[in-house]
């Protein structure tokens, strides 16, 4: 189920040493095949820096070996120097060794070296030589001083060293957590946040044997799904497909119980057998376990989770110092907390955004209700008034008066119809249920249908229409019903806001590339102030009617929905819409529709009737 989620490519392998013998790509693995991108990086490189300040990865007894060797070396050196000159305080050389040991390996080796130095100095250099007895009582003093000094130096240095290590450790933790916090703060969306978090955790814990990391989040039915993964070059993300069902089971268990689980998996590769530890850790926040962090790594990586209940593999002691494991596991726990917090915060944020959207839509509804109530009531009131006047008993209307009343009813009804269809359109468009159903159409056919209807309802009487549609306009994909609405709204707008007798022009042409159909509808009205050219496409926006010269007589009717609908429709078609205006001279509304390649440009797909016998009788129209 999670397989398809592994889409991001594994990061490039940055290990310098390539193991030449390691076969790639085709390893037989027990039960599941695992594609390995590259051999694992060597984590135990011994460098001089490591020897001086070994941090984690030398075996515990190396310090004691170093103590024995160091003392032997120092003894040799003293012997050599003693042959040349006699120096009274040559035993101080031992102190150097103790100092180094305590710095590099801590208290134990330093203690051993102190005692060894004491014995070696006595044995080799204090007469009688090669015996542990001392002849000169003053030599007791120098021996005692050597022992005490080296013991104290060893202890002090080891203590300082330990403090320094703790400080480094805590600095590392702080830096890691700070890095996480920065990531969390800078993430723009949920998915990238999750990806970044797992990537970061992998980077931090890769030195401790973690090779891959994944984030599991429960869906609404509490079933866990992998949301984000990261893996080092050594182990491809296919690791998460190992024993997929079991992994899902583990994640589900951790989600339900809130305690970490882990298991080891043996993978038989061509020449070697590798064991992986898969740990599932709960991500806890106040509201409970909100996710699971999965770590896949070497068996040593298990020490990151001391409380791990391990299934499927024998217990194994790594011999690491408890304090180091502690600090790393504390760091991991802190990281888990951070991730959990980040996820919770993202969830809360999403809820807040939803709540805000709801609030805004409520606000919109209120505004809509206010605007619409007025617009619905006005024509209804005039219909009611005119109809009841006509019906009122005892009044005889002259035919002219009666006609006027009836006309008012008709006009109001038309207004209501337009309003209702605009409202329906807008709600359907905004709900996303009115996706355009484009078909190759001539814009001219749509325009002429709209003009015919406006003519039929008498709306064109007071204006002159001028059409400039080139004859060779191509077919353009559009939803004819929606484009009908666009033209109706734009033309009605032009009719409404321009004086009687003025010219309304409809022009269309092809522009590009990329090829687009550009349609311009211009009027000779009073225009729109430049500051309002953008806002007119917002819902409910109306040009301030005080600016309209005839507003004193009759305010233009409308809800401020028409242009918003146009913009919605044009954008859904992949086009652009805007307005240009010169105040006092008129406005032009321009929109474009993309013209994709491959449209029918001629009727060549239809045969001529000579190729096919023409119908002899027209009455063959069969349903």
């Amino acid at each position, binding site marked *: 189920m999670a397989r398809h989620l592994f889409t991001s490519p594994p990061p490039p392998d940055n290990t310098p040493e390539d193991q030449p013998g390691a076969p790639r790509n085709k390893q037989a693995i027990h039960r599941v095949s695992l594609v390995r991108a590259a051999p694992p990086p060597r984590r135990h490189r011994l460098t001089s820096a490591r020897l001086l300040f070994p941090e984690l990865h030398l075996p515990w007894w190396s310090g004691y070996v170093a103590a024995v060797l160091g003392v032997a070396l120092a003894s040799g050196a003293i012997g050599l120097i003693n042959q040349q000159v006699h120096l009274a305080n040559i035993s101080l050389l031992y102190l150097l060794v103790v100092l180094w040991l305590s710095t590099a390996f801590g208290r134990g080796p330093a203690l051993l070296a102190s005692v060894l130095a004491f014995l070696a100095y006595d044995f080799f250099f204090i007469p009688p030589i090669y015996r542990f007895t001392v002849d000169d009582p003053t030599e007791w003093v120098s021996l005692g001083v050597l022992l005490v000094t080296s013991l104290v130096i060893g202890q002090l240095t080891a203590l300082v060293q330990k403090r320094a290590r703790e400080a480094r450790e805590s600095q590392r933790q702080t830096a890691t957590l700070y890095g996480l916090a920065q990531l969390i703060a800078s993430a723009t969306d949920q998915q990238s946040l999750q990806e970044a978090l797992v990537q970061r955790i992998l980077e931090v814990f890769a030195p401790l044997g973690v090779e891959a990391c994944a984030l599991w989040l429960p869906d609404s039915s509490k079933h866990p799904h992998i949301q984000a993964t990261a893996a080092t070059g050594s182990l491809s993300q296919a690791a998460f497909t190992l024993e997929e069902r079991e992994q899902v089971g583990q994640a589900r268990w951790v989600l339900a119980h809130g305690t970490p689980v882990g298991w080891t998996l043996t993978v038989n590769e061509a020449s070697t057998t590798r064991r992986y530890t898969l740990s599932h850790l709960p991500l806890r926040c106040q509201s409970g376990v909100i996710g699971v962090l999965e770590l896949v790594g070497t068996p040593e990586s298990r020490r990151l989770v001391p409380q791990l209940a391990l299934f499927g593999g024998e217990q194994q002691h790594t011999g690491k110092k408890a304090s180091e494991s502690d600090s790393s596991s504390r760091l991991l726990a802190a990281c888990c907390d951070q991730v959990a917090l980040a996820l919770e915060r993202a969830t809360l944020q999403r809820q807040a955004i939803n709540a805000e959207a709801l609030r805004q839509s409520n606000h919109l509804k209120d505004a809509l209700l206010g605007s619409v109530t007025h617009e619905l009531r006005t024509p209804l009131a005039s219909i009611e008034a005119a109809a009841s006047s006509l019906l009122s008993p005892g009044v005889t209307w002259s035919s002219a008066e009666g006609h006027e009343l009836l006309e008012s009813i008709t006009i109001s009804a038309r207004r209501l119809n337009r309003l209702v269809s605009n409202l329906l359109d807008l709600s359907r468009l905004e709900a996303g249920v009115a996706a355009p159903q484009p078909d190759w159409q001539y814009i001219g056919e749509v325009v002429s249908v709209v003009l015919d209807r406006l003519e039929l309802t008498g709306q064109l009487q007071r204006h002159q*229409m001028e*059409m400039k549609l080139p004859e060779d306009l191509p077919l353009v994909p559009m939803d004819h019903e929606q484009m009908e609405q666009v033209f109706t709204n734009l033309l009605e707008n032009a009719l409404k806001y321009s004086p009687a007798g003025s010219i309304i022009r409809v022009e269309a042409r092809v522009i590009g590339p990329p090829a687009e159909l550009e349609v311009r509808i211009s009027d000779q009205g009073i225009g729109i102030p430049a500051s309002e050219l953008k806002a007119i496409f917002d819902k409910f926006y109306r040009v301030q009617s005080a600016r309209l010269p005839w507003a004193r007589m009759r305010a233009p009717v409308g809800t401020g929905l028409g242009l918003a609908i146009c913009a919605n429709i044009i954008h859904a078609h992949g086009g652009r819409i805007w307005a240009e205006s010169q105040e006092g001279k008129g406005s032009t509304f321009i929109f474009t529709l993309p013209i994709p390649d491959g449209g029918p440009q001629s009727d060549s797909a239809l045969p001529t009737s000579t190729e096919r016998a023409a119908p002899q009788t027209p009455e063959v*129209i069969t349903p």
Partner: protein
Amino acid sequence: MNTTGSPSESRSLLPSDKGEARLASPATSARPPTGARVLVIDDEPEIWRAVRAGLISAGFTAEWASTAAEGIDLSARWHPDVLILDLSLPDQDGLDVCRQVRTWSQVPIIVLSVRGKDEDKVTALELGADDYLTKPFSMAELLARIRVALRHAAYPSTRGDQARFETGGLVIDFERRQVTVEGRDVHLTPTEYDLLKYLAHNAGKVLTHRAILQAIWGPAYEQETSYLRVFFNQLRRKIEPDPSRPRYLLTELGIGYRLRETE
């Protein structure tokens, strides 16, 4: 479907067990529109009230059915000359009524539908409805459509025999295969002429894209709506005085085309 059937012929197809079912005399079938029977099948009483008033004042006899069942029953018993059929009925789909009535009658059917239901309109037309109106509509529009439908039903077969068709300035001389616009000869390709002839024989009637494609190019081409638009665009350039405001070849968006008929 065969549109040559006159109202009298269609009546002869009525089930004989119905009491009122009888052969109508040729005289009644040829009667003028005035007095023609109009059956309105619509569940909305207020629509019926308004439409009835308009129909009666225009001289028609009107009857109302508020359900599909009642409508089917009345169209069988009352022998309407025109059926006004709302597509959304409480008990059955209006399309079913259309389908059922067409099994035994050629009575002209005008369907009423709301905006955004183009498929229904096309289906209704393909099931044999003669025309459609989008709600809300004006009474004048409805009356005009009824008159066209009645004319088509009254003189269905004579049209094909006419030697000449005329609407506005467009004249088609079928005998000489000649088309003139405002007295000016227009050269049409054979296919264009066939298309225009087909439209002329069905003047005033909405023809769906599919019906046109099928009639002129055959069933294999009935999906080529886009090419039909290209074709109409070319034809318009030849016969329309102003192709951007067609006077003769009218577009029914999403449905088909109609050749304007002289009123």
